[in-house]
């Protein structure tokens, strides 16, 4: 099996990574299928943590609801494992350091996980997990933030695997009205630090945090290599969206990304967003 990075680089289109909170509903893995059907290039699955330091209210609520209905990390991993056999797109786990370090890379790999995002594990703390992940064949995806200075950006770019997660804004996850200017600027800076923009070492740069509408996705796709969309989708699921409903929303993002359309197009309607 090729690495997550190789898979993504091979996609040849703006990348779309929808996020699903593991264990959010009894049928939560059906949402994974819906994402793949709608054209996701990979799927990020959140392992709910009691103390999600970097999450905004929507993902907090999704995590709380999953834990409240009795979801366990073990149970969610079993769901991932089954899904990884069924689905062709790579599955990425996002969770906080306390859970990630406890689980360890081998156990995640055994569940078919191909990438790992740990938002509270900065460079200085990640060396051991980087090594273990590499050993287990998992790409440890590092995050870059608007506040990250150039020398750190270079280091993040150097050590990140799979892609570089460009945090769009100084803030938590959560929907926003517009794509922040800081996102575009950050992507520009990361790309500037790509050792060879077209070489084999080139890592995709994806924008996450607050990408809320197809228009914003298209804009982000033009600036970088793709988007991660979480709160905008999980809000729908919290409000009762079925896997079919989610498929429509993800498809709208897919189309917007692919066409690279600018804001003001009818995709807002396709996505069900009528703000």
């Amino acid at each position, binding site marked *: 099996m090729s690495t997550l990075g190789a898979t993504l680089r091979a996609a040849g289109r703006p990348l779309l990574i929808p996020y699903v909170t593991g264990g959010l509903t009894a049928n939560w893995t059906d949402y994974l299928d819906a994402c793949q059907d709608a054209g996701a290039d990979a799927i990020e699955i959140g392992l709910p*943590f*009691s*103390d*999600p*330091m*970097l*999450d*905004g*209210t929507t993902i*907090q609520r999704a995590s*709380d609801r999953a*834990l409240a209905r009795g979801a*366990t*990390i*073990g149970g969610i991993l079993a769901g991932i494992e089954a899904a990884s056999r069924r689905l062709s797109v790579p599955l990425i786990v996002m969770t*906080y*350091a*306390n*859970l990630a*370090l*406890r689980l360890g890379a081998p156990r995640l790999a055994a569940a078919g996980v191909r990438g790992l995002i740990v*938002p*509270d*594990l*900065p*460079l*200085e*703390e990640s060396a051991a997990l980087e090594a273990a992940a590499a050993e287990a064949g998992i790409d440890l995806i*590092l*995050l*870059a*933030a*608007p*506040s*990250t*200075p150039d020398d*750190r950006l270079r280091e*993040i770019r150097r050590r990140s695997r799979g892609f570089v997660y460009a*945090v769009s804004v*100084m*803030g*938590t996850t959560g929907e926003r009205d517009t794509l922040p200017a800081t996102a575009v600027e950050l992507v520009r800076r990361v790309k500037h630090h790509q050792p060879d923009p077209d070489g084999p070492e080139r890592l995709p740069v994806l924008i996450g945090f607050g990408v809320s509408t197809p228009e914003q996705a298209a804009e982000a796709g033009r600036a970088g290599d793709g988007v991660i969309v979480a709160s905008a989708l999980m809000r729908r699921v919290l409000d009762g969206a079925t896997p079919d409903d989610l498929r429509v929303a993800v498809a709208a993002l897919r189309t917007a990304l692919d066409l690279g359309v600018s804001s003001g197009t009818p995709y807002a309607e396709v996505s069900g967003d009528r703000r």
Partner: protein
Amino acid sequence: MTMSVMRDPAAAGRFGAFGGRFVPESLVPACEALEEAFREAWADPAFRGQLDMFRTVYAGRPTALTPAWNLSAELGITLLLKREDLAHTGSHKINNVLGQALLARRMGKTRLIAETGAGQHGVATATAAALFGLRATVYMGERDIERQALNVFRMTLLGAEVVPVTSGSRTLKDATNEALRQWVAAVEDTHFCLGSVAGPHPYPWMVREFQRVIGEEARRQCAAELSTGVPDVVVACVGGGSNAAGTFAGFVGTGARLVGVEAAGGAAMTHGTPGIVHGSRSMVLQDDEGQIAEAQSIAAGLDYPGIGPEHAQLGAAGRAEYQTVTDGEVLTAVRRLARAEGIICALESAHAVAWVLRAAGTDELPHGSTVLLTLSGRGDKDMIQLSDMAALTGGPA
């Protein structure tokens, strides 16, 4: 154990296997800048002089060392109380906050945010913000807002905004998450004024240094008061562990036994396992999968599933020991100290008293022992809570 404990934890912020800086990349530069600013300020005699001035002239330091004459006689020990309850705003929290607010001003920040449990740290933060002309926002769990209504009003009166936190257990741990989140969004002009020796590096180190004044004063005062110069036992309550850390810092280089007392329902050292929460690795109450547990204590300030990483190191190294007492023992301790010495202490501080009451005369604390106990705060903030409970049970407290 050597003298190297309770020193500078260096750039990585490690206390043995504990500590570190487990924060979002967005916050790393802020933490680094803070570390650098603190390191520089702490080496600057002008900064130290200024802090000393505010401690003395404004906060009422040095605080008294009061022999607990009556309890000592009853218990057959010599019990000395380090009176942080006499500090301005009513607890040791002001020591840390004055330091951080001065530092924030030096860094050009115009706003403080803080988490609070009992409200004492929030009140202290609001106080320092008022004094130094900074804006202040305090995050407080909804449950704690109910338990500590007086402190909420005090913060408002001081001009701070108090934001209720409704997620998770709606106590200190969730308020801390929220403050961290808000810091990410406001890091440009805002200093996160963290209230205990927890959180990412440099907080555990910096807060311990700002609280060190407790231990250093107490050390000097004990030297004058005790024929042995140093007490046999030094005891303090532990939530995040800042009053204990500040106290221990004065005695870690002596032969004194160091005892931290946790709430039975929030005993990270006794019932916890290593884990990562609020930005550092330490002992944490958590389940098998790593979900953080909700603490349960009558004292809002100890209702916390973690503990500062340096305590985890001190405990692992055997240099300090950590004990637990129950809510019931704490209520008895509040009443007994009040009646014996005329001092109404905070529910948090009463944990240390409760351990002394239980241990005195046993092998744990034999007759004739000399004990320094840090009374971290006064009980005014707890009077509504206690009188409601008394109304239920039909007696005072």
